[in-house]
């Protein structure tokens, strides 16, 4: 049954493989022996106390941070000092930041169409059409011609998500996407993320939004002091944590 086999391999396709990876900031050992495998379409939620290295971990995946030991392979491309590889990985991995990092001198639409035009060499008209589609998908087409400074935090973060999606990435990284938002805006961003998760995107999300983790997460990773302490499916993770540090952390945030 070759056909079934094919389907099976594509479902089981590994998107990210991290093996015995270490990272130091000067003398400070931020990430210790990280091993992680993410399958296509999997949604991984990473949580842990601040300073535990969770942001650094996902920033290593698109080489915003450089790891010193071990290997990171993203969709078949190993991250080394080779700029070509970094370019390939970055064009396939989208990232959403805590502080949005929209380009303030460009409108929402220009923010979205910039990378397709310059990196993918998409013709301007087409790039803008695609950008408009994604702005509709994050439900703010009417804000397309406003500048980021004229939008609310929740709207800015949704533009940032649309901006990443315009590059048609295979993996999306979210670095605490809701922690800089006012409470009433968190939901509108989470709704967009949940919809994205349901569309089958591979996602790594650093967040403390446990509602999001249980709703769409395939697995939850708990990190502390640069190590992955516990990895489990959301149900068991929250109801039956194995490790003392996880229990302590959960008791503090829930």
């Amino acid at each position, binding site marked *: 049954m070759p056909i079934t086999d094919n389907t099976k391999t594509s479902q089981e396709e590994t998107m990210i493989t991290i093996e015995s990876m270490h990272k130091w900031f000067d003398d400070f050992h931020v990430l210790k022996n990280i091993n992680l495998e993410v399958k296509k379409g999997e949604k991984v939620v990473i949580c842990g106390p601040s300073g535990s290295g969770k942001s650094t971990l996902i920033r290593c995946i*698109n*080489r*915003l941070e450089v790891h010193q030991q071990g290997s990171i392979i993203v969709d078949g491309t190993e991250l080394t000092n080779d700029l070509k590889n970094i*370019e390939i990985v*970055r*064009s396939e*991995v*989208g*990232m959403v*930041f805590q*502080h949005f*990092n*929209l*380009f*303030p*001198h460009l409108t929402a639409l220009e923010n979205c169409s*910039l*990378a397709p035009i*310059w*990196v993918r060499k998409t013709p301007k008209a087409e790039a803008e059409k695609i950008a408009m589609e994604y702005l509709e998908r994050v439900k703010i087409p009417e804000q397309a011609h406003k*500048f*980021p*400074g*004229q939008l609310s935090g929740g709207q800015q973060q949704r533009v940032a998500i649309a*901006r*990443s999606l315009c*590059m048609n990435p295979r993996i999306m990284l979210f670095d605490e996407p809701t922690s800089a938002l006012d409470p009433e805006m968190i939901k509108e961003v989470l709704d967009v993320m949940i919809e994205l998760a349901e569309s089958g995107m591979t996602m790594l999300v650093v967040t403390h939004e446990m509602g999001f983790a249980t709703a769409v997460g395939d697995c939850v990773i708990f990190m502390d002091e640069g190590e992955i302490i516990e990895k489990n499916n959301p149900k068991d993770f929250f109801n039956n944590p194995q490790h003392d540090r996880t229990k302590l952390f959960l008791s503090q945030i829930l």
Partner: protein
Amino acid sequence: MTLLSFWLLYTIIPPIIDWAIINSVWTAGSRKECWDQMPTPGAGACWAFIENRIGLFTYGFYPEPLRWRVNLSFVLFVLAAIPVLTDKLPFRKYGLMYSAAFPFLVGWLLVGGWGLEPVDTDQFGGIMLTLVIGVTGITFSLPIGIALALGRQSKMPVLRMLCVLFIEFIRGVPLITLLFVASTMLNYFLPPGTVFDLLLRVLIMVTLFASAYMAEIVRGGLQAIEKGQHEAGDSLGLSYWQAQRLIVLPQALKIAIPNIVNAFIGLYKDTTLVLIIGLLDILGLGDSSLADLDWAGLANELYLFVALFFFTCCFSMSRYSLYLEKKLHTGH
């Protein structure tokens, strides 16, 4: 306070108006003729002096039959400025291409050669010389300054060190010293017999001097850009140059506009320093005109005229920069 101000204005302004307008004389052949037309000698401004010498002040010693080339250059300059200063223009791309070619076009037009009668650069002078030095310094110092600022932040140690050395050396030396170097010392470094035009040397020195300052101003702007902007560019897959050009520089330059224009204005006024090494710009020519016996003693009129000329240029630059800041404000 208000009353005091009014009183001050009341005592200062009427005499100035009397002098500059009511009692002024616009046509006369010499200072004597001028003062003969006034109630008392010197009671009014003798603008006839400026009028008499305006040709000299504008064109310097540029040969009279060829002055159309200067006039044409000035028209071309205005045309070149339009596409740079305004952005809602049809065919702006071609306009900008023309603006880029403009310095070379006008260089050819003014100096001659290749079919035009050559004019020695010693004959440049007056407003025209001031504009040549000022415009050259302004147009070339910004791109060079940006390159130096980026080089100073580069991760390549050799490049970074060269840029730092250059900037610190040029900034550490007064412009006058550099101009003296241009006028005397450069000849020692060049092989004997090479003729290296004095004006060209001065242009290079003024441009380098302005570039070093520009580099520091641009660096200030670059440092104001948050790390997140670079990261966003990186994460979208933009290359270093794309990120600089599309994301970092537009923001950094916008922040730096007031300082950039400030430097431009300073540079423009510093062009008067060239009179020290014998180039006669508007101030130098004015000074030498004062030595003419027919017109001696009219320093007030002359310096007021020169001041007015510089003020007009600098004030329009500063107004334009305010307009630009307003236009680029995007609510953040």
